[in-house]
């Protein structure tokens, strides 16, 4: 076992009123008013060498505490933790970076913070620089770097501490698409080489893709643990029930500000080729999505989703799940999604268009038009539900026609 937690509990003090100065403590004769809250209760789990564990759950469920315990930042109040092999935490990339320092100096400082000796740093220095792709600017101060560049440098240092166990917290949610891809590629290599990972991510798509085992946590306990797909799906189901809102894929916020590729002005088009905001039920509809490419993308994925105006998720698909290769894209273009007959019921719908860097990042779009296109569907019928399923009635006056 690479990671073993045995009956681990962790307690925090939650202060209602906290006296943080000697003066106040002397005045009140105590440190404040607090209650003890168990952030983790009796958590036991085991991760085999070479396996990847994902922790999912709401905020405050104890995911980050678990990660920090595995990374040995926190010490448990009860229970036993065993982590075999060199553990590296990617809880924050570039922790301790000095803006006035050059990239070179920051590599030395950051790597020594990760526990590398001077000799190790010197030996790996060139690899770190080439991995970060910052050869040209390595001797300029860090404050001149973009945030993406700083992240790349931090990631480069972290992976070159050659961990056997990696503890990752939402690192993949930051940075531009190219950086995310680089992280994912490295993680695949790391897994292939027998590395063990414990990660927290709100990006359920990534969790499903990357993890072998997933632990679903609630209020400091593991409520379900097992093979990734099953646990993630069960969790999504639960979240849908709770929120009443309902998109499995996009429970979380859309992507960051880095647009390597951008969605242009989307049009909804009817059978006459006219832009519309209203169509009849069962009529064909085309969603026309122009895009602008600022930086070539190898494997972009475009998705379109339809919600009813009360939030119900009706239908969504993307180029990847439909087996379409959208990329590589290096210049502006246009994609059309055609529905031969839009079998919706009467009502108002909202169409979303989302663009992802690749199929592994389909929870964090690089650009999104979330529920921006309003479509009114006119229908005469009074049937009800989410969609109109193709159907016909067979009416028979006797039981003779009954199929057995």
């Amino acid at each position, binding site marked *: 076992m690479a990671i073993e937690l045995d009956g681990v509990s962790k307690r925090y003090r939650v202060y209602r009123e906290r006296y943080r100065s000697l003066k106040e403590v002397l005045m009140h004769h105590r440190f404040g008013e607090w209650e003890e809250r168990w952030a983790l209760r009796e958590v036991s789990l085991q991760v085999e060498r070479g396996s990847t564990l994902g922790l999912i759950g709401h905020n405050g469920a104890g995911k980050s505490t678990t990660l920090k315990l595995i990374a040995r930042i926190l010490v448990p109040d009860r229970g036993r933790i065993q982590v075999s092999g060199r553990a590296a*935490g990617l809880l924050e990339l570039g922790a301790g970076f000095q803006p006035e320092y050059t990239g070179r100096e920051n590599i030395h400082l950051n790597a020594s*913070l990760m526990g590398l000796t001077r000799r190790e740093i010197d030996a790996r220095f060139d690899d770190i620089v080439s991995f970060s792709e910052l050869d040209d600017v390595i001797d300029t101060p860090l404050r001149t770097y973009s945030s993406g560049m700083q992240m790349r440098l931090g990631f480069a240092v972290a992976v070159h501490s050659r961990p056997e166990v990696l503890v990752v917290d939402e690192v993949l949610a930051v940075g531009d698409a190219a950086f995310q891809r680089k992280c994912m590629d490295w993680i695949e290599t790391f897994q292939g080489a027998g590395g063990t990972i414990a990660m927290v991510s709100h990006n359920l798509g990534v969790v499903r893709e990357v993890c072998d085992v997933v632990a679903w946590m609630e209020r400091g306990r593991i409520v379900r643990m097992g093979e990734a797909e099953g646990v993630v799906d069960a969790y999504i189901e639960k979240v849908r029930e709770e929120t009443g809102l309902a998109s499995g894929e996009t429970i979380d916020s859309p992507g960051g500000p880095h647009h390597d590729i951008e969605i242009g002005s989307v049009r909804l088009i009817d059978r006459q080729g006219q832009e519309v905001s209203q169509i009849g039920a069962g009529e064909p509809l085309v969603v026309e999505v122009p895009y602008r490419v600022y930086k070539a993308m190898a494997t972009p994925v475009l998705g379109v989703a339809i919600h009813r105006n009360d939030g119900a998720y009706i239908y969504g698909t993307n180029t990847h799940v439909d087996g379409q290769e959208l990329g590589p894209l290096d210049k502006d273009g246009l994609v059309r999604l055609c529905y031969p007959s839009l079998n919706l019921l009467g009502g108002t719908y909202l169409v979303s268009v989302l663009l992802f860097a690749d199929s592994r990042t389909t929870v964090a779009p690089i650009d999104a038009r979330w529920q921006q296109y309003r479509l009114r569907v006119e229908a005469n019928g009074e049937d009800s539900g989410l969609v109109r399923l193709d159907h016909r009635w067979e009416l028979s006056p006797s039981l003779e026609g009954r199929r057995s």
Partner: protein
Amino acid sequence: MATTLTTAGGRHLGTLWAYRGLVMNLAIRDLKLKYKGSVLGVLWSVLNPLLMMAIYTVVFSLFLRAVILPDYWALVLAGILTWVFFSTALTAASVSFTHNANLINKVAFPYESLPIATVIANFVNFLIMEVILLVVLVLAQSVLHRQVGLRPPAVLLPVILAAILACGLGLSLFLATLTVYFRDVEHLVGIGLSALFYVTPVLYPLDARALPHGAARFIPYLRLNPFSWFFESIHSVLYYGTWPDWPTFGLMLIASAAALVGGYAFFMWLRPRIPEEV
């Protein structure tokens, strides 16, 4: 409990040793920040104690006539340098946990490296100033008095400096840890140091003949202050050129060892909760 704490402390020292590269890098960072703007930075750190020496010498010896000693400036300079080390190192180190909360929260590393590096950076600075001081003393003696500037007791200087370093390290660990729980310690350290400055024989010797009439009755009380033991020893070997008062010298060694062990034990005691409290 006591034994587990001891073994944990021992194991932890091993970790700290493995991170010596970090301590060095952090200390270099501190020094670089101090000397940023290079020439002026270095110049200023040399000029500052010299300027203080000039002011104190004029005020206490010429103006107030509080201390009557030949070459009084040399005693002042030896005292000031040691004092500046203590006060800057302790002031800076006391916030080294609280000001690096985001690091302690997010990275697993022996975070005592932070105050230790701060003390070491200040100590390196102090050593450079001591070398300059020795050169000045030798030159001044030979020019002003045509004598050899340093006498044999100066061989004890490395021992005294080591004691000063140990004391600084221990107190820094203690104060940095305490500041995690009491944020106003940062300010109290400043106030405490200003008060301590006058009751510690930095600018004067604990010698009734050199002090104004009536000051002698305070001397026994002033001797109770552990800091006085360091300054008396420094003044003996550098200014008077005599062997130190051995009981005082012994007390200094004991006090520095006690500060180091006590500060480290205090830190180790509260260490597990620091990432949550900081």
